[in-house]
């Protein structure tokens, strides 16, 4: 059973409607990307509606950074098409650049520049630039404007990259593991800023992270990148509502994992058989447990559990 089956499931009526009349912020069709002979993205299709926080999940090497860089035109693509704000993204350019903020995975640019000089340089290009926000964040996050970028720690550089990305008040914020090097206080403060930014209408955030708690805090939609394509993009609440962790326990153990309708992933651990089941029917699971002389326990998985099972 594969996680890709999730993509074919009809969304619940309560879920946000992706087929809404709103123009997607991002539309990807058949994206292909290879490095030498290694194909990283394979005919990837993806649509991101406006006004959502999308958490891009995937294992190490799944291609998250490559995907994000391709979306912004920072990495040439081998095939397919990317539309950003309704325009083809052949290369980064045009007025839409005023509406995009990006935090790269590692910020190793312009080490000879001082923070203030770098921000002034960047601000000169933008029509919108929230100088008050910049000053507040520099102060709150203890970044000395007179310090050279090369002297900053990785965490401080990441803070600077975040300040730089949100200062133009972007409509689309793309963040590549933005909190990986941040301490818990900074991470929390960043999430606070992110959620504040999201309160304005029409703002969209795509961010890749391995810290699933942040996605839960932001009530993000989850997009799973695996095997070179997006397996599904669904609201976290919907995932948690529909996907359940089912544990069958019996003293004799299990020769094979039990076959249950809707099971996406199964594995046997001694006397326990653990299944990730979509839309489980409690009565039929209990009936199955009785037949197999086993007990059954149904629990709501955490996002981390889901990631471990599906990614």
């Amino acid at each position, binding site marked *: 059973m594969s996680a890709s089956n999730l993509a074919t499931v009809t969304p619940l009526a309560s879920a946000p409607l992706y087929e809404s009349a709103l123009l997607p912020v991002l539309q990807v069709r058949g994206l292909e990307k290879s490095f030498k002979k290694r194909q990283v993205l394979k005919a990837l299709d993806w649509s991101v509606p406006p006004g959502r926080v999308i958490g891009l999940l995937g294992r190490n090497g799944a291609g998250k950074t490559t995907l994000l860089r391709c979306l912004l035109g920072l990495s040439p693509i081998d095939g397919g098409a990317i539309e950003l704000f309704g325009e083809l993204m052949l290369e980064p350019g045009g007025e839409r*650049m005023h509406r995009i903020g990006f935090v790269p995975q590692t910020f190793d640019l312009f080490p000879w520049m001082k923070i203030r000089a770098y921000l002034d340089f960047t601000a000169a290009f933008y029509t919108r630039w929230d100088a008050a926000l910049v000053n507040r964040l520099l102060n709150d996050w203890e970044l000395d404007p007179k310090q050279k970028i090369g002297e900053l720690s990785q965490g401080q550089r990441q803070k600077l990259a975040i300040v730089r990305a949100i200062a133009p008040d972007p409509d689309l914020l793309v963040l590549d593991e933005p909190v990986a090097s941040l301490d818990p206080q900074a991470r929390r403060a960043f999430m606070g800023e992110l959620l504040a930014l999201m309160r304005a209408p029409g703002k969209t955030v795509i961010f890749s992270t391995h810290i699933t708690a942040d996605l839960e805090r932001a009530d993000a939609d989850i997009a799973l990148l695996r095997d070179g394509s997006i397996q599904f993009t669904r609201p976290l609440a919907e995932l948690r509502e529909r996907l359940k962790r089912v544990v069958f326990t019996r003293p004799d153990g299990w020769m094979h994992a039990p076959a249950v309708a809707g099971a996406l992933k199964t594995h046997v651990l001694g006397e326990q058989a653990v299944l990730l089941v979509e839309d489980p029917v409690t009565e039929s699971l209990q009936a199955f447990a009785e037949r197999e002389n086993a007990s059954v326990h149904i629990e709501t998985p955490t996002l981390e559990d889901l990631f471990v099972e599906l990614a």
Partner: protein
Amino acid sequence: MKVAWQLWMQLFRRMPVLIAIANVLRLAALYFAFRWLGGATKMAPLAAIFFVMATWIWHIGQGYGLRSLCVPESFLLPQFRRRLLEYGAIDIGMWVLMPTLFAVVLRAPYLPLVASGFMLLAAIGLMMGCNRRAGLLIWPVFVLFGWMPTLFAELMKSALQSPLTPLLLLATAALLLKLSITPLLRIEDRETDASPLESTSFGRMQTRSAPGEPRRTGALGKRIAALYDRASQRAMDRALNAYKQHPTASRRMVLVRRLLLPHDNPEAIALRIALVAIIVGFYFFAVMHRQHFNPVIIGAYSIMLSMSRFPQLNIGMTRMRPNMADLYLTLAPQTQAEYQKTVSDALLVLVPISMLTALVYTVMGAALVHADDPWHMLFVAAIVSVSASLAALAIHMIGPEGTTGRTFVNFVLIFGVMGVYWGGYWLVDVAGYLIGGGTLTLVTLGFSLGAWFAAQREYQLRPPRFDAPIG
């Protein structure tokens, strides 16, 4: 204008010394131009020379600045390309239009030629700053100049009179600008970073990629880099196998050398020599018109080529620092001084390698120009290259890390070594192989051994540094 101002400020932040020199030269040009305006017509050539130098240096700086600025992330800045274009227009205004207007006021002759010449000069400077390989494109002019001087003089005479020459110069400038800037405006996947201590003989200058700047390698460069990589991998495998069979201290040292100096194994050295032979062959083609070759120049050039490894070592060791922490933990030395000694001993292998390459280059040079006394050249090259390499290694190991200091040291070393070769050649010529050679050996080796032991002691006293350089 805000963006243009910020881009302009970048130059002062990145290369303050270079820009200061360019501005001083420009002021000097202005001073002589005013003297010219006052009636001192003899000042005209001085004004022109200073302005030419100022334009050239300023635009080398512009090119270098552009190289470090044009990283993929910069293209996310709104209208980045357009802003660059506007900035270019302002630059043309300052360095082409204004001086041309000044030339009009001065009633200088050949005005269209002067204006297009300013443009070409700026384009050449920019090209040399932002695309080192494109610098090779100006070689054909020198080949023509050297090979057929009469034809070249005739061409120049006709060109001065032809109304088409300014157009040709402008077209050439446009072509050079396209060749220099287009690769910078292309967004490509980042190439894997090479070892900071690589030595492929391509990056002869110390100005390697700026921090954060993507490596820009053409198809041929990629193929050659792959050859080097395979050679280093094989050398590392051999060293590992030898160490596994008999883990002795000397084999451990070989392993450290394979890690630190990936392109200083026999295969890679042979490849480097072959590549240099091609470049030297081209150089020979460029100067083959000459009837008489000065063996001292050929020998000094060969030594200079072999010495170009050491400036790379200086900057490479600085950039290597964050990776050196891993080596430190792997070696697990008893003291920091022990670790420092291991590193300095590992680097000492560069001295025989440098001597070997100097000798090979001298043989090539002597053979190409049919030198009268190749043994004389080789004899002096052997003595000078050992001493010079030892001294260069010593100085670069503990020398300045800043760009200005490093550049100064490089100039002193290169011209010093060429001078010593010149003097040594004369000494052996006058006093013979035994007396002259002995004296040369005594003086140069005495100096370089003294420098080496002092540098090694100083290096061992210093604590190892693992922090990343600022930029």
